[in-house]
């Protein structure tokens, strides 16, 4: 069976082929388990990259082009005061331009409902097209999704719209939560609550929408299993942390495995602990995830225990270096009560240092 696994990227520039980083990271841990490795990762799953980065890039590029053209003509005309547009010049540069290549994505998504809606429709169109193709070929849809960072918010908002019970979209029943239920929704470095919109026209509270786990085909439950991974030193996951209690209900947590799994890790193998590969490397992240994506027997308890025992919390870093990195990360930490604006300062302290570290 082609089990579709959608990959939804985070903030920053994602050029063609970006998904290979995600697949390689997953493949690296997948190959550690003998039973799973008998079948190639890409034979077991069909990965479908879901991109939306071009929406931000085109918008920013238009701003930069408009500002540049206007400034040039203004100077010819002897007008010196062009403060209206000068701050937009160079916004389209991709090197060492974190403010525009990363931060602007989040801000545009959060602040501009037009951009948010455009991104969600773009994402939905890609997902629905892939599901349609799968159903046409195989008569069923079997899919999961793994989203990272900003992608978790984008994914949540997209699925919340798709499964909105008040939607007037023609054919919405065929795409209702109980008809297109995902097997697993995996949120890595989940910021969906940080960026959620709870207004009358966008009533998409991350704890209330159908983007929640439930039994097979349960009304208003968009997935069978919801997996949430957070790194304790990842500052993006701290403000308005996604950490629901007794969610979606007590029954779901009594299931084996629980329908909602929340894992927290704190290993430090590199400065950029927000990186998806860094997350997936930890057995407490990849073992439950791979089990949910396949079968609980695919990685035995013994193998899991061995993987945990072999896992080095500091990786190849020397202890002193790891302690220094950890200290800096703790210094840059935002508070749980901080809102999304606080992340601007965190970005300066945290991401600015890791700009070439394969962020998001």
């Amino acid at each position, binding site marked *: *069976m082609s089990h579709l696994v959608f990959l939804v990227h985070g903030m920053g520039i994602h050029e063609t082929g970006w998904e290979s980083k995600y697949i390689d990271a997953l493949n690296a841990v997948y190959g550690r388990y003998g*039973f799973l490795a008998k*079948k190639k990762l890409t034979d077991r799953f069909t990965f479908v990259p879901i991109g939306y980065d071009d*929406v931000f890039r*085109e918008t920013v590029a*238009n701003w930069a*082009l*408009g500002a*540049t*053209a*206007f400034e040039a003509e*203004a100077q*010819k*005309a*002897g007008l010196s005061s062009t403060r209206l547009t000068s701050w*937009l010049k160079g916004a389209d540069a991709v090197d060492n331009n974190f403010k525009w290549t990363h931060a602007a994505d989040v801000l545009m998504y959060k602040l*501009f*409902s*037009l*951009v948010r*809606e*455009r991104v*969600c*429709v*773009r994402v*939905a*169109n890609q997902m629905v*097209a892939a599901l*349609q193709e799968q*159903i046409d*070929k*195989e*008569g*069923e*849809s*079997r899919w999961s999704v793994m989203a990272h960072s900003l992608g978790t918010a984008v994914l949540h908002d997209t699925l919340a*719209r*798709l499964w*909105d019970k008040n*939607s007037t*979209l*023609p*054919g*919405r*029943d*065929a*795409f209702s939560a109980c*008809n297109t239920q995902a097997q697993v929704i995996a949120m890595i470095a989940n910021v969906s609550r940080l960026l959620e919109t709870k207004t009358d026209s*966008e009533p998409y509270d991350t704890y209330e929408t159908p983007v929640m786990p*439930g*039994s*097979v*085909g349960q009304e208003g439950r968009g997935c*069978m*299993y919801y997996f949430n991974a957070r790194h304790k030193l990842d500052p993006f996951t701290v403000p308005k942390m996604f950490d629901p209690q007794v969610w979606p209900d007590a*029954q779901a947590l009594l299931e084996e495995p629980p329908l909602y799994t929340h894992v927290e890790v704190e290993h430090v193998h590199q400065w950029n602990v927000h990186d998806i590969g860094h997350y997936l490397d930890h057995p407490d992240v990849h073992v439950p995830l791979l089990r949910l994506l*396949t*079968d609980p*027997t*695919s990685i035995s308890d013994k193998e899991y225990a061995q993987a945990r025992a072999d896992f080095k919390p500091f990786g190849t870093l020397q202890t002193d270096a790891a302690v220094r990195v950890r200290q800096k990360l703790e210094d840059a930490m935002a508070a749980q009560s901080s809102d999304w604006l606080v992340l601007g300062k965190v970005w300066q302290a945290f991401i600015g240092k890791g700009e070439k570290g394969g962020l998001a």
Partner: protein
Amino acid sequence: MSVLRSFAVVTVFWLFGTPFAHAEASCSGFDLSKWTADSVRDARSCLADFSLKGCDAGLCKKFEAWKVTEGVPEARAAGARQLLSLVRQDVNAMVSEFPSASVLDGDIKQLDHSLEQGVSPDRISNRQWVYNPQHATLSETGEPGDQKVDLGGLLSRECKAVVAPERCNVALRVSARLRMAALLVQAVITELQAPSRSQGAATIDELDERWAVYFDKGRFQYPWELAVNSHRYHRDPGFSGPPNDQWILLHPSVGYRYLNGSGKKLEQTLLLEVAGYYRWEWAGAEATKLRGGSLVVSWADTATEFRRGIGFLVHMPKNYSLGLVQERGASGHKIALVMSLDLGKVVQDPKSQKASFLEAIR
């Protein structure tokens, strides 16, 4: 001699495998009677990976034949019920071997009844037939005390002990037949939902195209304009399309001015749309009947003087605008014809924009 004998034994084992070792699971193809597994996880893996893709079994062929038949929804539903009846026969044949199969039989019967009553396929969940790999179950509902088809329990019992591998194979084959039956039922419902699903997919695709038109081909917005228009945006529940109008605010641009009697005829000018409004109508994914206007101030540095103006622009399709400004300068008041180029586009094709303007003023 003993070395040769050892070599021969090793060679035989290498070529044919040790007779005491477990064989690898074999579960490809749709002749389920040939499926084998010798461990619980091999068997569960076979079930998890099972799909109807390329299925050439008799029921699959019947399904494919029904799938391509055309007809009114009632006729399609009648055909679906015939298929379900055949699937039920197959499931019933397994009840004696595996009594839990009767749960699946009951579910298919209920589905058949719904179709008979004319319940819309869109209102029927196809997920009930989904295999849950975490439990290796079918017909799971999550309700307390639900009756599910517990294939995992069967496989755990029959495949745990290696003393009777054939029992594991039998359990796997029964499980696979039930899995296939559930997949066929799911495929039937999914097919009945196809018109609705296609309509939903087409709507989302059209919305996506409209948004592309709004952002990529519509008038370009500076951040402050995007903020204002986002604030004004009224969306529908679920997915929503782009608005059909746009406010323009402090929008700088470059244009050309044409002054009757001017020596150079056509000169560049800077324009600032102080405030404006632009609207259109959607026809499918196309924006039509585009119209709007802006109040505008202008600056022109001519060869002899610096002139400021105030006036209006009328927005035309294809990202250009025509208008009149009253200019003031050392040579007095004059009315100039101006054309504004949407800067987000002018940098893409300035020559054609200028040509458009020249054509417009001729």
